[in-house]
């Protein structure tokens, strides 16, 4: 019985790991493709100070600002 519970927990952990790796890979690939599209259709490499890349930097500033709330 105990072995069965142990095996089940291990299976769940492996399934979570797989889902996590898949999720991260798909997310990274999706944004990689967005970057490629940006380079093709807009204005070459994403300049960190202009256009879409700058909008993303603003989003990052929001995430970081709210995140730091948990530290003080």
């Amino acid at each position, binding site marked *: 019985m105990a072995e069965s519970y142990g095996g089940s927990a291990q299976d769940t952990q492996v399934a979570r790991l797989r889902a996590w790796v898949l999720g991260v890979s798909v997310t990274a690939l999706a944004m990689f*493709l967005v*970057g490629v*599209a940006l380079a093709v259709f807009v204005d*070459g490499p994403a300049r960190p100070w202009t256009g879409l890349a700058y909008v993303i930097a603003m989003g990052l500033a929001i995430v970081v*600002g709210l995140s*730091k709330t*948990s530290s003080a």
Partner: protein
Amino acid sequence: MIFVIVPLGKGTKEVTAWVIRVILYTLGSMLGATLFALLMGLIGQGLRALLPGLGFAWVTALLGVLAFVFALKELRIIPLPTLQIGWQVPASWMKPSRALGNTLYGIVLGAGVFTFIPFASFYLLLLWEISAGAVSLQAALPLGVIYGFFRGLPAVMGGISILRGEYPLGITDWLIAHLGLWHAVNAVALLLVSGLLLGSFIL
């Protein structure tokens, strides 16, 4: 922080006073973050003068690689050391005047580098401010303003909750209770940024 700005047990007659203190704290946070963004931008300008041949494509690639590395740190895949000063703003700053003390708290906490830095994404934001500032200081400053505003926003929301008779630390408690999830949110944000920058660089 919210209990420093809005002490518990105070009557409604002091609402005006704490509203002013919350506003001063948030403005201080924005000022501190903006001044630090200005400093980062000036460093960017200096680096650009020192390395005139460094093209923006390489800056894009560098930020993309670092964003990926920081994402791996957030996901605890690679154990990078966290450079931070574990300092806390002293309560004695409140003694001369609560308004002044709250403003100073905001400025110091808004700058971001003098206290704990539990999220690697903060470093990417600083690097982005340097990169943007290298081209234009005006581009670096809004990043600081936005960061500072959202750094101070939970205090404003906490104050509003107190006014409504609700528990004021909803957001902060949620963040602390779900720290793992919040690290994952940061990791995903960093992966998005990394993918965008590296994808556009490779072409």
